[in-house]
């Protein structure tokens, strides 16, 4: 972290926003432009420089699904300072979510996942805002978002989400998990994406293997890294590429999705 930066507590930005009528996120970005930095971001140091941190404060991300992948992605984005997160999930938290979903605790059973997401983000970082959407993403028009994060479970609606990202002209960061295996990929508008390979199938592995917690946290971590790098203008390592990770053998490989048509038997 630049030694010349003035480190400010969260409350300074909250107070400024209350006085100015501007959003907290705007106050954070403006403050960074004036040589300040929220103290909570100081350990992002040179990995996320002030200009990056200001970009994150101004960013809007649509998080589709707040279950296994989505709960972890929310945590990473909120801690990193992504200013506005549209959290979209019509489901409530159930006991079978508890093995892997960060938002599933004894106190949140039966509650809408997106409402719990709002509370969690507020507890983690009051400088970010989560807008809860309790209807399906299929009924939402994504305007003014910078990235969409595909944290859906199952294949049924993946292609529809990819088409929505293309319509919104924004990148889509996707993952799928089963057992100890994780797939992660980023799709630019009008390019081949993971959803085309999933092909709407309902016979996928996780229905038999289940999803242990480390696998979902791992995949979500890679998704969040991609989102943060895209938002800060850095190259996306997984654009058009698919990462295949086997956590049982700690085997990692990536393959281009652009070199052939989806393999569908």
């Amino acid at each position, binding site marked *: 972290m630049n030694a010349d930066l003035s480190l400010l507590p969260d409350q300074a930005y909250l107070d400024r926003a209350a006085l100015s009528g501007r959003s907290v996120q705007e106050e954070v970005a403006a403050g960074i432009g004036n040589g300040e930095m929220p103290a909570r971001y100081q350990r992002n140091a040179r990995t996320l420089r002030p200009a990056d941190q200001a970009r994150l404060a101004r960013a809007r991300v649509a998080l589709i699904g707040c279950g296994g992948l989505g709960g972890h992605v929310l945590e990473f984005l909120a801690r990193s300072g992504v200013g506005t997160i549209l959290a979209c999930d019509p489901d409530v938290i159930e006991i079978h979510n508890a093995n892997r979903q960060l938002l599933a605790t004894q106190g949140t059973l039966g509650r809408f996942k997106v409402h719990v997401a709002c509370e969690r983000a507020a507890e983690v970082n009051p400088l970010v805002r989560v807008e809860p959407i309790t209807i399906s993403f299929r009924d939402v028009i994504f305007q003014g978002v910078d990235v969409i994060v595909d944290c859906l479970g199952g294949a049924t609606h993946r292609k529809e989400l990819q088409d929505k990202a293309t319509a919104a002209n924004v990148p889509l960061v996707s993952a799928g998990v089963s057992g100890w295996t994780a797939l992660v990929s980023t799709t630019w508008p009008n390019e081949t994406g993971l959803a085309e390979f999933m092909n709407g199938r309902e016979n996928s592995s996780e229905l038999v293997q289940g999803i242990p917690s480390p696998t979902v946290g791992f995949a979500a971590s890679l998704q969040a890294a991609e989102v943060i790098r895209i938002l800060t203008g850095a190259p996306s390592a997984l654009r058009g590429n698919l990462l295949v990770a086997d956590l049982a053998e700690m085997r990692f490989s990536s393959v281009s999705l652009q070199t052939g048509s989806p*393999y569908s038997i």
Partner: protein
Amino acid sequence: MRIHLVLEAILERYAPENAGACEIPAEMTVGELIRHLGIPEDLVMFAIVDGHMATRETVVRENASVSLCPYICGG
């Protein structure tokens, strides 16, 4: 001929002995390999041969590295 075979996730159950140095008939296509292994075709989401996405018509060469992945869509 010998290939290096990796069966991801739930497909592991179809792995032959010594999958890392697996003997298969020469000039097999990916589709034929899947049937040779007894894997139901609708379980396979994609195949990677020597680091590239393959189709069922892709021919598997000697010493090829072949990875077969089932549908993985959990979240």
